[in-house]
């Protein structure tokens, strides 16, 4: 099995060829939005930080910004900074250029003399990049060059029973084809971590999974929060999930059954191929942000109650096994898996159908969130602003 993508000098091929308009900080975000609106082929992200941050938060922000720039779906990057942020535009540009040879340019609003002058230069640069990107031809690549993120959000009881194990079957199929997958949301391993850890390829990986859960509980306790107080969410409870353990035991099924070969920190890039897990929040937008920064070309997203969320550079494919949600929120849902609940489709059959769908997305089929141009982002933080 092959997919058609855009060759990159480093890393995996892209399944999209975006010009990314990237702010260094919140003060650059609005200018980035205007620049992206002027150039077909350009996408922007809204970044709500980058200034007045402690070192640990800055480190996370930098991982996300450089990760987004490095993501294979990005052809080139136009950075817009202000001039007084923690990591200025030229510094961020050099960091990105140290990791990739794709085109990167940067501007500072204070240096250029304000918004309009910056927009003019940035639009010219983005237009040139988009024109070059439009000439790049797609090439066939083996599925081993595919890295898929696995996410769930707005879960209800149908998620753990049907859509998550169906996506687990898809993950197994992809791994058998040589591809890799990342499952994240470590708070939603708690209560099922002993089951997840059984998939570990080594005792070290087994214990890393347990330790992530223990550390997560402790971290929240240090902030005076019992992880069981916010999880499950009110929506999860209304959807029939009563405890964190119940939610987690359903959540982890979306990762499939193949051995876990690597455990990643949030937004870190994989070094192994196969089934990978990442330590992220259960907050779906933050988790999707981290997996996009890790280099996933596409993300499959299961939901029970329905969600519109999308990412600027990585297509997000929504699947649900809740019949009502699929018809009621059809404008946001991509795949209907309710036949599993009705006993009409086996998980095997559903996994095969999902493989067809994600393969189509890899080949250019727009997901609904992508067609709307949704660009949600949330960068996980560990500490207050200074």
């Amino acid at each position, binding site marked *: 099995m092959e997919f058609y993508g855009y060759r990159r000098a480093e890393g995996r091929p892209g399944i999209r060829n975006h010009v990314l308009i990237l702010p260094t900080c919140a003060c650059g975000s609005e200018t980035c939005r205007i620049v992206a609106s002027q150039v077909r082929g350009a996408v922007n992200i809204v970044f709500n930080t980058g200034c007045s941050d402690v070192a640990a938060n800055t480190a996370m922000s930098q991982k996300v910004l450089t990760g987004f720039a490095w993501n294979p779906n990005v052809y080139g990057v136009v950075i817009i900074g202000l001039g007084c942020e923690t990591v200025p535009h030229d510094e961020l540009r050099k960091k990105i250029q140290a990791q990739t040879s794709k085109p990167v340019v940067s501007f500072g609003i204070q240096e250029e003399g304000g918004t309009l002058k910056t927009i003019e230069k940035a639009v010219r640069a983005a237009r040139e990049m988009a024109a070059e990107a439009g000439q790049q031809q797609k090439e066939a690549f083996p599925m081993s060059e595919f890295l898929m993120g696995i996410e769930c959000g707005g879960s*209800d*009881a*149908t998620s*753990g*029973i049907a859509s998550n194990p169906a996506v687990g079957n898809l993950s197994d199929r992809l791994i058998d084809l040589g591809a890799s997958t990342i499952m994240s949301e470590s708070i939603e391993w*708690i*209560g*099922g*971590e*002993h*089951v997840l*850890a059984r998939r570990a390829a080594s*005792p*070290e990986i*087994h*214990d*890393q999974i*347990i*330790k992530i*859960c*223990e550390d997560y*509980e402790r971290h929240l306790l240090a902030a005076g929060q019992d992880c*069981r107080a916010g999880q*499950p969410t009110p929506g999860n*409870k209304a*959807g*029939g999930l*009563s*405890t*964190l*353990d*119940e939610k987690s*035991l*359903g959540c982890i099924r979306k990762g499939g059954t193949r051995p876990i070969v690597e455990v990643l920190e949030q937004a870190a890039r994989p070094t192994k191929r196969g089934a990978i897990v990442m330590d992220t929040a259960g907050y779906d937008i933050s988790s999707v942000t981290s997996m996009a920064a890790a280099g996933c070309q596409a993300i499959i997203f299961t939901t*029970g109650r329905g969600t519109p969320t999308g990412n600027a550079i990585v297509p997000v494919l929504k699947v649900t096994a*809740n019949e009502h949600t699929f018809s009621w929120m059809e404008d946001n849902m991509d795949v209907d898996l309710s036949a599993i*609940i009705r*006993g009409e489709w086996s998980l095997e059959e559903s996994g095969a159908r999902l493989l067809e769908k994600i393969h189509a997305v890899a080949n250019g089929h727009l997901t609904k969130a992508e067609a709307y141009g949704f660009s949600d982002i949330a960068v996980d933080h560990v500490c207050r602003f200074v």
Partner: protein
Amino acid sequence: MEKRAILLDEKDNVATCTSEVRPGDLVKCSGGGSAEIAAAEEIPCWHKIARTAIKKGDRVYKYGEVIGEALAEIQPGAWVSEKNIRSIPRDYSREYLLTKGEV
């Protein structure tokens, strides 16, 4: 009326209703095991029905795994939710294969 529920594992003492259930409905469970339960109360779609009597402090099983403990006596056919079960805190120290320093 006859209703359906999903029993994921033979070990489970709860099943997930696939439609709204009313008192007196006969709930037929299938999936990882089979059972028939007479519903004792109204249960919303996708919520859990008790397959057996669950005593206060007893473990509640779904997926063949513990999802919590009962906060009060739960009758067969009753609605099982966050109102009558709660999560049991983990004892991570017993889960490590290697000594913690090696991770």
